[in-house]
């Protein structure tokens, strides 16, 4: 690809990002903040980040790991503990049965970074034994570690730090963020988009670097990759740690979004949902994961809502009632898994060329990568 084309493309990308930011700001200034659309956008952005981080492992490095919920749990708790004001930590309003052992507080951004780092450190430790395992054993072992993490966070002895199995709340959430040096509240949706967009951007850069090519080589054929001089363990560990770092940050975002955090929420079912998002989007496609996480959240929370309302019943049948939405939804997922195993995007990426292609004359052999 020549330099002029590349320059043009980055200009286009910049324009799109700027337009998106403007649209979000305008939306937040004009629409009611309780609107359903905002919830969808926020949650979608958070899930997009964790789905992309899982895709980095499952889709680009070929490590079938199911520990994502555990790393999100670390991120969410670290964030909640670090940003809770000291006065609340000392009072009885959150730590009712324990005396909080953490005597300081951090700002939002440092706390998020620490959340990611802590998740990454745990991943590095867990990775040492676990990454020697292959395919399904790796899946079960990472799943197991996520469960162990959940048990540790709910443990009584950890109470002074994690508040046991009780809810964490009254930390800095999305409504508490201010524009730097002022008292104007920062638009929450924009914040979610900025953080997760930045993180996804870093992951994309990583995948397009020489490390990313090594990851893909490991995915395609481990033995051949090793023969070409790629240090298998080093690269696997790296992919695992980086993926967990971003899972930790998305956990922190989720904590901000929800206002409360409880360890019981981060079950294996959560990992399964993230995995299904990745599969629907296409294993090995970043843009696919982003699209499908917004779709997933939209269907789950909004578009299929009418299926749950028993007032919509036709012919007096009582098929439609609470829970039916989830049944329909999981059938759709099964259909995608069985009949469209490539998902929405396969392993390709969305790019301007692809979007333009239906309009322009199709050139054979031109790949969308770039």
């Amino acid at each position, binding site marked *: 690809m020549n330099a002029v084309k590349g320059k043009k493309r980055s200009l286009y990308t910049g324009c799109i990002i700027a337009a998106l930011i403007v649209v979000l700001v305008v939306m937040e200034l004009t629409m009611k903040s309780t609107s359903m659309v905002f919830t969808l956008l926020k949650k979608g952005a958070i899930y997009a980040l964790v789905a992309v981080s899982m895709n980095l492992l499952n889709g680009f490095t070929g490590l079938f790991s199911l520990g994502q919920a555990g790393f999100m749990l670390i991120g969410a708790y670290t964030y909640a503990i670090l940003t809770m004001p000291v006065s609340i930590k000392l009072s009885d309003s959150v730590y009712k049965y324990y005396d909080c052992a953490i005597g300081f507080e951090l700002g939002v951004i440092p706390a998020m970074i620490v959340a990611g780092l802590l998740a990454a450190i745990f991943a590095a430790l867990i990775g040492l034994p676990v990454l020697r395992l292959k395919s399904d*054993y790796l899946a079960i072992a990472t799943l197991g570690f996520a469960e162990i993490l959940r048990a540790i966070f709910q443990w009584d002895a950890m109470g002074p730090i994690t508040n046991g199995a009780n809810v964490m709340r009254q930390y800095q959430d999305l409504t508490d963020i201010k524009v730097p040096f002022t008292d104007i509240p920062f638009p929450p949706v924009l914040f979610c988009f900025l953080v997760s967009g930045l993180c996804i951007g870093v992951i994309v850069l990583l995948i397009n670097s020489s490390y990313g090519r090594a990851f893909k080589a490991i995915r395609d054929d481990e033995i051949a990759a090793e023969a070409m001089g790629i240090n298998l363990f080093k690269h696997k560990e790296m992919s695992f740690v980086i993926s967990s770092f971003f899972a930790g940050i998305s956990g922190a975002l989720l904590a901000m979004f929800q206002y409360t955090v409880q360890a019981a929420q981060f079950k294996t079912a959560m990992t*399964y949902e993230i995995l299904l998002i990745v599969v629907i989007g296409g294993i090995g496609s970043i843009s696919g994961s982003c699209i499908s996480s917004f779709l997933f959240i939209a269907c789950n929370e909004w578009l299929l809502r009418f299926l749950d309302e028993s007032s919509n019943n036709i012919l007096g049948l009582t098929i439609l009632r609470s*829970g039916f939405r989830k049944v329909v939804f*999981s059938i759709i997922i099964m259909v995608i898994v069985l009949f469209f195993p490539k998902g929405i995007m396969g392993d390709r990426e969305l790019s301007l060329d692809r979007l333009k292609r239906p309009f322009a004359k199709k050139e054979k052999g031109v790949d969308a990568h770039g």
Partner: protein
Amino acid sequence: MQFLQNPMPYILAGISVGGQYALIAIGYTMVYGILRLINFAHGDVFMVAGVFMVFLSASLPLGLAIPLVLVLTVLLGFVIERVAYKPLRTRNAPRMSIMISAIGVSYLLQNCALYFTGGLAKVYPQLPWLSDTIEIFGAVTKRVTLITPVFTIVLVVALVMFIRHTKIGMAMRAVAKDFETSRLMGIKVNSVISATFIIGSFLAAVGSLLYFTNYASVTPTSGGMPGLKCFVAAVFGGIGSIPGAVIGAFVIGISENIIKGLGWTTFSDAFTFALLIVILLVKPTGLFGEKATDKV
């Protein structure tokens, strides 16, 4: 620390739960032995059997409901294999997609159960005789606690005989050894796989009858954790080996209850996974597993 003062109830409960886990673990180990697939949906099949029982026993006498539960669960296992796994297998999809399909089935079964139960914990019917309380060595327990291990051993012995001495059992062993060659030898691989799923689901249904009699309520998520534990039991015993799975299940059931008795209930689930990780690192083939060699 109640365990130290009075260990009997915990050990009894452990043996009983171990027996119930064993029945589920066999389903995992047989399917993995043949397809190299962790059937994530197996734990949910077990849960659905419980839900079937709740609904059927509400309208039918127990004598009719129990056989019907067994038949329906077997049918469910058969249909899952035919609809969700076979198409992928014939298409030669990578192993990962079959596993994802299994996770999808698990998600579907849980959501269906959520829909039909309305998300509430359903009270499991009392089975006469099995639910009666008895006293043994100073510990009060339900009769099912004592029946389970005996029943499990009988079923396992029957199953092992079946696999050793019948034609279909021989076919199963052949397919587990080498998928392609056994197909060349004229074995109908698909019917062997179906038979595996039928046996696995049948045992899961029996296991669910015993398990839920002990626990008295069914929720849509009550299949997940026992399912994972039973998989760990299968790995512990050496995946593909039936006696191994049974021993693994008893080890997990008993140690889990001892840990509960020592007052570390939060860690009873975590222990299982810690055991898994240790086993995978120290002896990845499990207690009785055969060493598999990868050809390049």
